[in-house]
C-alpha cells in the first residue's frame, strides 16, 4: 500500500509541476554526469564532480542538499551518504541549501520538494553515486599526478594514499587535475561492511547554528530596505473583502502602506509591531461567503448522513454480507477525528523582492518549484528571473508544502504592489486559523467474529474531504473515485480478515485541507488499531496475541510487533494503576510498533513510557531515527490529548497555544526507541512514528477505564471508569 501511495504521490506531483509551471520538468537527471556547477564560489577554488558536491582547495567538502531541513535531519543524513562514498573527512564536511534548478528535483516528485518521509531513501542511490563519482575522479587525478596505476591507490579521510610507497595527497590538492577528468558512466559503490559513517550515530551538522541564534530561518532574513507586512485574511474560509478602510491603520506610526492583494489586506510597516497594530486598526467588511454558517456540531450530523450513503470502493475482498449471517458476535462503531493544524513552531513567513526584471524570494519551504513557478506567474517574469533561497524551516509537517504557494504568493503580490522588498509574517493566530488542516475524518466501522473469536468480516467507511479532488492532482491521486490519502492505512490492514469492504465518501470541500504529518494514516491507524483492540477484547484475547494470530500474511509487521512487545516487557505485570496498550502501523515504507504505559493522575492521563520499534530498512543515521521517533510520539500525543480545530458561525474557535495546546516538558513520556536490523527496502522516518501513538495510548487507557475512546481529542469524561 505504501508503495502504491508513493507512486501515486509521485505521479501527481509531476503533474502539478507541469501544470502549475507550464514547464516540462526533467525526470531524474543523471547526477553523475560530469556537470560542473559553481554556486556563488569562484570556480578555480573548487571542483564539483556533480551538482551535489563541491570539493575546495581548502579540503572543505560542501554537500549541496536539495531537501529542505525542517528538523528531520536532511542536512546531516544526505551529506553522510555522499561523504561515506567519497571517503571524506567528516570534520571537513559542510552543507548548503540547493538553489532551484531541475537538477535538484526530487527523483520521485519530478520537481524540487521535500515531503512524504522520502528525503533519505529517495536520494540513497543518487547521493551514493555522487560521492563515489567524486572519489573516482580524485583517484584518477592522483594516479595521473604520480603516474601510477589507480589500483595501487586507496582513499581515507580526505586523502588519496599510494599504498606501496605510503605517499599521500589531500583531496584539496587534487582539485585542479580532477576537474579535467571525465566522469565515468558507472562507478563502483562501497560494500556495506566498508561504511564509515552510514549506520553510525553521527552528530547533526546544523546544531551549532541552532544553539547560538545564528541560524537563519525565513523569519530572520534581513535584506536592505525590507518592510514587514501583516495581512488581514477572511475570517471565514472562502470569504472575500467587501470593503475596507485603512485610514486608522495608516495613522499608526511606522505604517507605510495598506494594499489589497488576492488573499486580503496587507498592512506594510517598518517592522512587525507597527504592521500588526496597523492590521488591528483596519476597518474591514467581509463578505463571508457560503461557509459563514459552518459549525462543527452540524458537520457531525452531515458526516454521519454521508456515512450512510454508498461510497467509492477502496477495497473489496470476499463477501461481507454473507459473512454477516455467520458471525457470532457483531460490532458496529463510529470513530470521529477532528481537523488539525500543523502549527509549526515558526509561523509562516516569506520575504520577496520583486523588481522589473527579477524576483528574489527567501522562504522556508517544502515546495521550491511550485513557489518559484507561482512567483513567475504573478510577476510575469521568466522562471530564470526568479531566484528562490531556501532558509531553515522552523518545522514543516506538510504545512510548508502547499500546491497554491499561498504564503509565497502573498509576499510576491505585496512586494510587486509596493515596489519594495517585503517580509510577510503570519501571527500564531493567523497560523492556527489559516486552514490547510488535516481533514476531519468520520469513520464507521463494523466487524463480526466467529466462534473462535476471529474476525469474519470487516466493513469500514471513511468520510472526509479530499485535497486532491477538484485540483489538477485529481487525475493522478484519485483512482476509481477514491482519494488514496483518505484511505491509506485502512484499505490495507495487517490482519487477516476473509471478507472486507472499505469505502470512502467524500465530504464537501470548503475548509482548506492538506497533508499533515503522516497524512491519512494520522486518522486511519487510530481507527484500525483501536478497533482491532476492541475485537481482541470481545474475543477474550490478549491484544498483542490477538493481533499476532492474524498477522501470518504480514510477517514484517508481525516481527516489529513482536519486537516491541519484547522490548517493552509486554508480558510483565505492571504496578497497580498502570495500563499498557499496543499498536502497529505501516506507512511511508516503514513499520512502527509502540507500547504505551499510562495511568490516570489528578484527572489527567499520564503517559509514562512509550516503547518504539521501527523497521525502516537500511539505517543511515540511527540517532536521527531515534530523534524522529521521539518527535513523532510528541506530535501524536499532542493530537490525541489536545488537537482540535472546530468551527462556530463559520469561524475557527481556536487561536493560539492556550486553546490549541501542545504537549509540554512535564507531560513528556520516556521514549525508548529500538531500531530493527532489517533487510527490507528503505523507508521513511519523519512520519511513520505518528500513527501508532494515539491508538497505543488510548488502548492502554481502555485497560484502566473499560471505556473505548473513539473520538479525539481526549475528553475529561473519557478518564472516568465505566460504571
Amino acid at each position, binding site marked *: 500500500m505504501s508503495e502504491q501511495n508513493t507512486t501515486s504521490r509521485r505521479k501527481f506531483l509531476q503533474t502539478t509541476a507541469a501544470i502549475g509551471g507550464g514547464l516540462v520538468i526533467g525526470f531524474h537527471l543523471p547526477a553523475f554526469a560530469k556537470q560542473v556547477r559553481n554556486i556563488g564560489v569562484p570556480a578555480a577554488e573548487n571542483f564539483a564532480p556533480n551538482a551535489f558536491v563541491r570539493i575546495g582547495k581548502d579540503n572543505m567538502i560542501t554537500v549541496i542538499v536539495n531537501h529542505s531541513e525542517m528538523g528531520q535531519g536532511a542536512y546531516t543524513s544526505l551529506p553522510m551518504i555522499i561523504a561515506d562514498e567519497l571517503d571524506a573527512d567528516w570534520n571537513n564536511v559542510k552543507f548548503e541549501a540547493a538553489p532551484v534548478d531541475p537538477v535538484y528535483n526530487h527523483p520521485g516528485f519530478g520537481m524540487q520538494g521535500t515531503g512524504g518521509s522520502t528525503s533519505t531513501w529517495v536520494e540513497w542511490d543518487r547521493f551514493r553515486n555522487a560521492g563515489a563519482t567524486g572519489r573516482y575522479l580524485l583517484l584518477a587525478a592522483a594516479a595521473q599526478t604520480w603516474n601510477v596505476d589507480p589500483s595501487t591507490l586507496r582513499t581515507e579521510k580526505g586523502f588519496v594514499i599510494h599504498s606501496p610507497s605510503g605517499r599521500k595527497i589531500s583531496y584539496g590538492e587534487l582539485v585542479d587535475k580532477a576537474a579535467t577528468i571525465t566522469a565515468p558512466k558507472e562507478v563502483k559503490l562501497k560494500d556495506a561492511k566498508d561504511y564509515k559513517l552510514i549506520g553510525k550515530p553521527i552528530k547533526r551538522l546544523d546544531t551549532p547554528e541552532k544553539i547560538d541564534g545564528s541560524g537563519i*530561518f525565513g*523569519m530572520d532574513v534581513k535584506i536592505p530596505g525590507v518592510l514587514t507586512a501583516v495581512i488581514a485574511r477572511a475570517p471565514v474560509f472562502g470569504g472575500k473583502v467587501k470593503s475596507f478602510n485603512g485610514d486608522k491603520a495608516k495613522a499608526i506610526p511606522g505604517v507605510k502602506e495598506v494594499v489589497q492583494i488576492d488573499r486580503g489586506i496587507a498592512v506594510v510597516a517598518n517592522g512587525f509591531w507597527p504592521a500588526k497594530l496597523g492590521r488591528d486598526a483596519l476597518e474591514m467588511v467581509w463578505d463571508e461567503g457560503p461557509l459563514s454558517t459552518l459549525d462543527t456540531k452540524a458537520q457531525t450530523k452531515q458526516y454521519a448522513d454521508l456515512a450512510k450513503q454508498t461510497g467509492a470502493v477502496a477495497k473489496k475482498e470476499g463477501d461481507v454480507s454473507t459473512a454477516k449471517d455467520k458471525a457470532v458476535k457483531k460490532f458496529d462503531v463510529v470513530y470521529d477525528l477532528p481537523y488539525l493544524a500543523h502549527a509549526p513552531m515558526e509561523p509562516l513567513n516569506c520575504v520577496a523582492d520583486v523588481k522589473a526584471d527579477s524576483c528574489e524570494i527567501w522562504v522556508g519551504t517544502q515546495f521550491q518549484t511550485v513557489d518559484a513557478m507561482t512567483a513567475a506567474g504573478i510577476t510575469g517574469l521568466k522562471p530564470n528571473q526568479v531566484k528562490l533561497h531556501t532558509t531553515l524551516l*522552523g518545522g514543516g509537517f506538510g504545512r510548508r508544502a502547499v500546491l497554491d504557494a499561498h504564503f509565497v504568493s502573498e509576499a510576491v503580490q505585496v512586494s510587486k504592489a509596493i515596489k519594495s522588498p517585503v517580509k510577510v509574517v503570519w501571527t500564531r493566530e493567523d497560523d492556527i486559523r489559516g486552514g490547510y488542516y488535516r481533514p476531519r475524518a468520520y469513520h464507521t466501522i463494523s466487524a463480526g467474529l466467529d466462534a473462535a473469536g476471529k474476525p469474519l468480516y470487516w466493513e469500514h467507511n471513511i468520510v472526509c474531504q479530499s485535497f486532491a479532488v477538484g485540483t489538477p492532482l485529481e487525475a493522478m491521486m484519485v483512482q476509481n473515485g477514491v482519494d488514496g490519502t483518505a484511505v491509506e492505512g485502512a484499505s490495507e490492514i495487517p490482519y487477516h480478515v476473509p471478507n472486507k469492504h472499505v469505502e470512502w465518501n467524500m465530504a464537501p470541500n470548503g475548509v482548506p485541507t492538506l497533508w499533515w504529518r503522516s497524512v491519512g494514516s494520522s486518522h486511519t491507524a487510530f481507527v484500525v488499531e483501536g478497533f482491532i483492540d476492541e475485537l481482541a477484547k470481545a474475543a477474550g484475547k490478549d491484544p498483542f496475541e490477538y493481533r499476532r494470530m492474524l498477522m501470518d500474511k504480514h510477517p514484517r509487521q508481525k516481527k516489529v510487533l513482536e519486537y516491541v512487545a519484547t522490548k517493552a516487557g509486554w508480558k510483565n505485570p505492571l504496578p497497580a494503576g498502570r495500563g499498557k496498550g499496543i499498536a502497529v502501523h505501516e506507512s511511508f515504507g516503514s513499520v512502527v510498533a509502540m507500547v504505551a504505559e499510562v495511568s490516570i493522575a489528578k484527572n489527567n492521563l499520564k503517559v509514562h513510557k512509550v516503547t518504539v520499534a521501527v523497521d525502516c530498512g537500511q539505517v543511515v543515521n540511527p540517532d536521527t531515527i531515534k530523534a524522529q521517533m521521539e518527535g513523532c510520539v510528541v506530535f501524536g500525543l499532542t493530537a490525541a490529548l489536545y488537537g482540535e480545530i472546530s468551527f462556530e458561525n463559520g469561524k475557527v474557535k481556536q487561536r493560539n497555544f492556550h486553546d490549541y495546546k501542545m504537549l509540554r*516538558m512535564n507531560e513528556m513520556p520516556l521514549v525508548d526507541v529500538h531500531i530493527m536490523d532489517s533487510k527490507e527496502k528503505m523507508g521513511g522516518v519523519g512520519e511513520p512514528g505518528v500513527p501508532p501513538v494515539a491508538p497505543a495510548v488510548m488502548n492502554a487507557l481502555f485497560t484502566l477505564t473499560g471505556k473505548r475512546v473513539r473520538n479525539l481529542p481526549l475528553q475529561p469524561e473519557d478518564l472516568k471508569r465505566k460504571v
Partner: protein
Amino acid sequence: MINLKVNGKSYNVDVDPSTPILWVLRDALELTGTKFGCGMAQCGACTVHLNGDAIRSCITPVARAAGQEIKTIEALSEDAIGKRLQKAWIEEDVPQCGYCQSGQLMAAAVLLKEKPYPTDNDIDLGMSGNICRCGTYQRVRKAIHRAAAMK
C-alpha cells in the same frame, strides 16, 4: 529614545515604548536569535534574560527594559553555564528544526543558575513554559542534566 543594554552593548532606540522587547531586538537591533512563536507568553520561544531573570520578550514592553541589562541567545556563550549548556546540547544532539531552541537554552540557563543540580521535577517546572513542536523534550532534559554534571 529608550536606552537599552543588550549583551553588554548600549543602544538608543527610537520606538514606541509599548513595543514588545522581542520586536525591538529582532527588527531594530537585528538580533534575530530570539524567536517569535506565539506573541502571548505561551511558548517561550522569545525567552531572554532581563537582569538575569527569564522573561517573555513578546509581551514585555521595551519601556520596562530601559536602562536594564538584556541578554539574548547571541551572548549565551559568554558565561560558564551558557557554554556548558551549548556543549551539552551538541552532545545530546538536541535540536530538530531548532526554532524553539534559543528559548529552551535561555530558560535552561536561568534554571541552572537557580538550581545547579536540577531534579527531573525541577526541569519540569523550569522548562514547561517552552514549547517544542518537534518534540525534543527528552533530549532537552538529558542535556540539562549533562550540563549540570559538567565541570
